[in-house]
């Protein structure tokens, strides 16, 4: 019995203390009336308890304002990541011309190029536009080969470029994911060379640091609603292979999921 009583006393004491404190603060913060201003006195109607008399009903609620086009688009963009059915990954095959640095001092030494790459819309990991829609990264392999010489002495050279390259896309068509992009990255170049003289081949191979940068245009229109997208691009990519400069002019096609 003593415990509830003690709790009741404590609660009462606290309430009294709080009330006393509140009264004291109200009195301190009360506005100082202008003694010579008649309008300072509140003349609005009051009930018998002295409280202000409120209208019988409140003002009608205003009509719900519709979102503007911009607001709708902005909201759609903001929420797009939530219900996008795509995974944000894709794969492409590449073909084009690899304009190798010309050892003989010509402008370039052209070679046929092949390649493959997977890409990931890595920006999806980020919370907000534009980075979550514009950033992607490629993991690519590009291959070119050269062979030249006389019947007696000839050489063959193979070039394998392995790169990881993030890119930023400037969208021109959100729905079909058309856009221009800038890309820079790096990796390794594996170079194999063989020289054959009088039927005897001698080979050498080595790795070189590889730096890449470039521009391109890519798109990803849906092949089926919410399903697979066609992924394509055209690009100009510059490779810095050791101390040599190569240029890739290529087109790619593949699928994005």
């Amino acid at each position, binding site marked *: 019995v003593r415990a509830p009583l003690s709790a009741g006393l404590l609660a009462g004491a606290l309430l009294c203390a709080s009330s006393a404190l509140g009264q004291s603060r109200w009195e301190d913060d009360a506005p100082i009336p202008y003694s010579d201003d008649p309008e300072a006195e509140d003349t609005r109607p009051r009930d018998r308890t002295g409280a202000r008399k409120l209208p019988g009903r409140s003002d009608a609620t205003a009509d719900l304002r519709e979102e503007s086009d911009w607001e709708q688009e902005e909201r759609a963009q903001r929420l797009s990541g939530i219900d996008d059915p795509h995974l944000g990954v894709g794969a492409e095959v590449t073909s084009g011309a690899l304009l190798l640095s010309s*050892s003989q*001092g010509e402008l370039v030494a052209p070679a046929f190029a092949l390649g493959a790459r997977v890409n990931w819309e890595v920006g999806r990991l980020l919370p907000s536009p534009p980075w979550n829609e514009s950033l992607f990264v490629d993991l690519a392999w590009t291959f070119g080969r050269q062979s030249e010489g006389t019947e007696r*002495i000839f050489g063959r050279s193979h070039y394998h470029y392995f790169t990881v390259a993030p890119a930023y896309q400037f969208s021109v068509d959100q729905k079909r994911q058309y856009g221009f992009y800038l890309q820079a990255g*790096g990796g390794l170049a594996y170079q194999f*060379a063989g020289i054959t003289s009088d039927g*005897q081949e001698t080979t*050498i191979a080595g790795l070189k640091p590889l730096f890449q940068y470039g521009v391109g245009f890519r798109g990803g229109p849906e092949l089926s609603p919410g399903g697979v997208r066609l992924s394509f691009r055209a690009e100009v990519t510059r490779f810095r292979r050791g101390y040599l400069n190569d240029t890739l002019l290529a087109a790619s096609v593949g699928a994005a999921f």
Partner: protein
Amino acid sequence: MSSPARLWAAAVLATGVACAPSPEAPVQVMALVRSGGSAGSYQPTQVSLRTVGDPVSLTGSVAQLIGGARIDVDPADPLLRLNGGNLNEEQIARVFVKDSGRDPRTSYVEKDGVLWPADFHSWNLVTTYYNFEQAFEHFQAVGVPAAVLGVVKVYYFPEFILRELGPRPLNDNALYFSPVQAFMILPFDQLQATPLSINQGIVAHEYSHLVWNRLVFGNQAFPTVLGRWSGTSQVNVNILKSLDEGLADFHAFAASCRSAFGCDTRFMQASFNAAQTDARDISRLDRCFTAGLRNSLQSLGINEFTGLGLHYQVGTAFASSLFHAGRGPEEWALLSRALVESYQDGENRGLAELLRENLETPQLFSLEAAMNVFLAHVSSEELRERLCGQFLGRMNADRAAMPACPAASAPAEGCAP
């Protein structure tokens, strides 16, 4: 450091470390060279480039290789008439070189401190530089100062047009072309054997033409003596052209004695067929300056004479005389030295002085007069005696016109008088 920052730092680092190889000379490289046991085949061999400054552009104190040039030699080029047609050698070269080209970008893979060419043209370029260095060292060894030889331009696979021959670029040749004061390694087309500039003997042969031009013709784009004698004494022009070719073959042979493969009179075989090689093999005893050749030399104009390739035949007979006069690498080197000393020798009257003296008296110049100058510069009495014997027998020379010929010289056998 954040991830993007790390990425950019790595990229910048990759760019920074992606520098061209820049070792100090001597630079260890692989080149296509005939070694002692290679049976005449050019195989990858580690060599040392002692004079190269930049192994990527292949520029050094011996040669500067240049790619992608365009040289258009048109005698009707209006630029040749500038300044009343009085152009110096540099201006003439500038008229003909329409595109001065670019530095090669030789591709290497480095392995154990040795640079390995990583494509065909890189192999070809590196070997070309090496061969020029070997030719340079040969001529230095036989007494030609480095300052005379200088740094030579080598146009690699240029577009080379001789309008007098036609509008199409020429292929399948390597040459020293005095109007542009440079060598040209032309692209191959029909020649499918060892590329000409990989062939060390052919590069030494062409380098000999440079030495001849520098010392005998005073480095003139269009030698005065040839211009003067072309109208009045074509026989003398034929003689000079023949001597130039024969001496180039002999110097190339003498230079081959410095190689690991050894002395080789058939150095052309790697690039040409057996019949062509036989025709230029200076070791053969049947290489003679016949009466028929002498008649052609005296009667044909320079275009017809060279068009028939007769300057090579006369030259091979002359070079064969030099070869058979010597009895081994030491004597061949001595002869090589004597020859270049005789090209220009001031008061001792070398070939250049002989030509200058007879600029207006071409009838006083002859094959014997030139051979006499050579004989006079052979310091060894015994060697001179043998050489004169070769001139008398193989070249059917007139002893009376060669005062430097020792009295003891007997005509060498093997050629019909």
